[in-house]
């Protein structure tokens, strides 16, 4: 391996057989290149999904009502289910240990919103003080609705930053301004940012105010919860599944809904959704690995093929070398040394090229569900080693056979 004479002999041979060397190298380098790019995008896909789910609290659970489709206990199908304050309070009490944060939500409909003479077309939602954390809203100015606001049914509002930009752009801050909702002035106490513009086009007021001022009674539109974080993802999913089924059972019982009626009460769990996506990305990753390994196998077959041809082409040269006193092992060593050298160099060239490409282009890729494709360096390096090893093994047998052909037969080879 460290025989300088051998190295000179091999470098000589490589220098004088450029095309052969180039073709061998190309098949190895492209195999590695394709594998790394594929793996990179598999990871990018995973990153993208993880990013999408980072928007809302990862453990949030949402409830919204629907319409019954099954007859149950003498009640007709087609009944609209309405959530009440009691549902929120009792479910919160019943499942207290499993809940981290909770908030009801009510959509205030058919109201006009005005700022001075300007009519605003934004949705108004009544929420509780914990809603901010459930939806991951970041307060950029002022504060969110507080518990005190709820108790006092304060006429305060928190607006999204898009509203602040569109309506209050002349002011340093919208905080302290008043907007009229159905003619009732609400004081703006804060503004928030969200990941998407659409989610910044909302005005939050305390849920108690929304019910009292806008004749909401004790109706609610949504119940929102977050669950405490668990040790592992799977454990969190298991807890979420359990929580969901208990919550559903409770609500179905309270509203006299058939246990199999899937249209009466909807419960959406971010974790379970995430799990579906994660298992999807796992499958995609598996698929990319499969394609990548097939690529590597194709590379190995390519390398062994070339080795076979190289040995075939050099049979006569091997005969000459043997007639001049080369031992079989020195022939095998020479051929393997050369092939390992070429596959290693070109393998690492493909690796550096593809990783460089991912490194340079990766952060600029802005497609939904693909983010910052990258690849695990040690995985990539080990694939290069696998390819080099496979090339060596594949090259060994023809080399060994050629080295052991009778010198006389090798010399006759044309």
């Amino acid at each position, binding site marked *: 391996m460290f025989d300088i*004479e051998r190295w*000179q*002999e091999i470098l*000589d*041979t490589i220098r*004088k*057989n450029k095309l052969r060397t180039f073709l061998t190298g190309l098949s190895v380098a492209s195999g590695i290149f394709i594998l790394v790019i594929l793996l990179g995008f598999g990871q990018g896909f995973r990153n993208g999904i993880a990013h999408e789910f980072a928007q809302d609290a990862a453990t949030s659970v949402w409830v919204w009502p629907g319409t019954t489709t099954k007859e149950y206990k003498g009640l007709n199908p087609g009944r609209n289910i309405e959530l009440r304050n009691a549902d929120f309070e009792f479910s919160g009490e019943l499942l207290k240990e499993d809940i981290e944060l909770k908030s009801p939500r009510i959509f205030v409909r058919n109201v006009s919103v005005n700022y001075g003479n300007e009519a605003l077309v934004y949705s108004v939602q009544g929420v509780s003080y914990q809603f901010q954390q459930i939806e991951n809203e970041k307060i950029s100015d002022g504060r969110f609705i507080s518990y005190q606001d709820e108790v006092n049914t304060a006429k305060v509002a928190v607006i999204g930053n898009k509203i602040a930009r569109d309506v209050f752009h002349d002011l340093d801050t919208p905080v302290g301004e008043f907007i009229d909702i159905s003619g009732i002035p609400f004081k703006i106490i804060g503004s928030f940012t969200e990941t998407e513009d659409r989610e910044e086009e909302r005005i939050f007021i305390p849920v108690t105010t929304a019910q009292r001022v806008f004749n909401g009674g004790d109706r609610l539109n949504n119940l929102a919860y977050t669950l405490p974080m668990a040790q592992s993802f799977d454990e969190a999913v298991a807890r979420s599944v359990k929580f969901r089924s208990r919550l559903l059972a409770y609500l179905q019982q309270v509203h006299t809904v058939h246990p199999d009626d899937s249209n009466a009460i909807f419960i959406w769990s971010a974790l379970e959704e995430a799990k579906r996506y994660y298992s999807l990305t796992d499958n995609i990753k598996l698929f990319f690995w499969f394609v990548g390994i097939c690529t590597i196998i194709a590379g190995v077959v390519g390398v062994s093929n070339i080795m076979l041809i190289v040995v075939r082409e050099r049979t*006569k*040269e091997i*005969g*000459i*070398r*043997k*007639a*001049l*006193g*080369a*031992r*079989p*092992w*020195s022939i095998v060593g020479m051929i393997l040394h050369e092939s390992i050298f070429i596959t290693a160099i070109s393998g690492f060239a493909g690796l550096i090229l593809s990783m460089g490409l991912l490194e340079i282009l990766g952060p600029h890729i802005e497609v939904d569900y693909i983010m910052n494709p990258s690849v695990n360096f040690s995985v990539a390096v080990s694939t290069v080693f696998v390819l080099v090893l496979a090339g060596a093994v594949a090259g060994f047998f023809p080399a060994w056979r050629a*080295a*052991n052909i*009778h*010198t*006389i037969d090798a*010399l006759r080879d044309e």
Partner: protein
Amino acid sequence: MIEIKELHKSYKMGANSLHVLKGLNFSIKEGELVAIMGSSGSGKSTLLNILGMLDEADSGEYTLDGVPIKNLNETKAAKYRNKFLGFVFQSFNLINYKSALENVALPLYYQKVPRKQREEKALKYLEQVGLKEWAEHLPNELSGGQKQRVAIARAMAAEPKVLLADEPTGALDSKTSYEVMDLIQKINDQGNTILVVTHEEDIAHMCKRIVHLKDGVIVEDKKVEQVRASQYV
């Protein structure tokens, strides 16, 4: 230098066995220039291959420079070839991607001579065959006679005990043949032992002794008056 006794060799051709060498006996002393003659199929190439350890006899004894040559494996044969023998082939057998100089230096590589000395020595032998100016040329840039001279230089570079030439002039026209034979005679004049296999009468008469093979037996073994090739050049 070379000593053979009762050498037999047969080849299997399917179900039949072809008896090529039928008990040969002869010896060659140091400094001899011997021609082995015979028509094709007489067994002369087989004999040369056995002498060159490229092939193995079925039975009989073969002693080279006092060393009994038997039970050869490829590694051992390679070692002996490198140490004792130089080959010159009809088809030159130069490595076509190596320059003349590198071809001549190749046997020295297998003798583990350092690169610098290899090149010096190779250049010296190229000079002897009159091709010093062609050292950097590839074989396909050389004429047939030049190629054979490179091959002879290569065979001599390893400083072998015996030079084995298998139809060295077989692929050359007569003028070039005589040039090559002139070179072989000069090398012999320096005291080297040389064996030439040929089927050409005039080439054989440029040697000092002719061994005539026919159907696997020696029919004639005579000393001849050497014709100097230089008079035709």
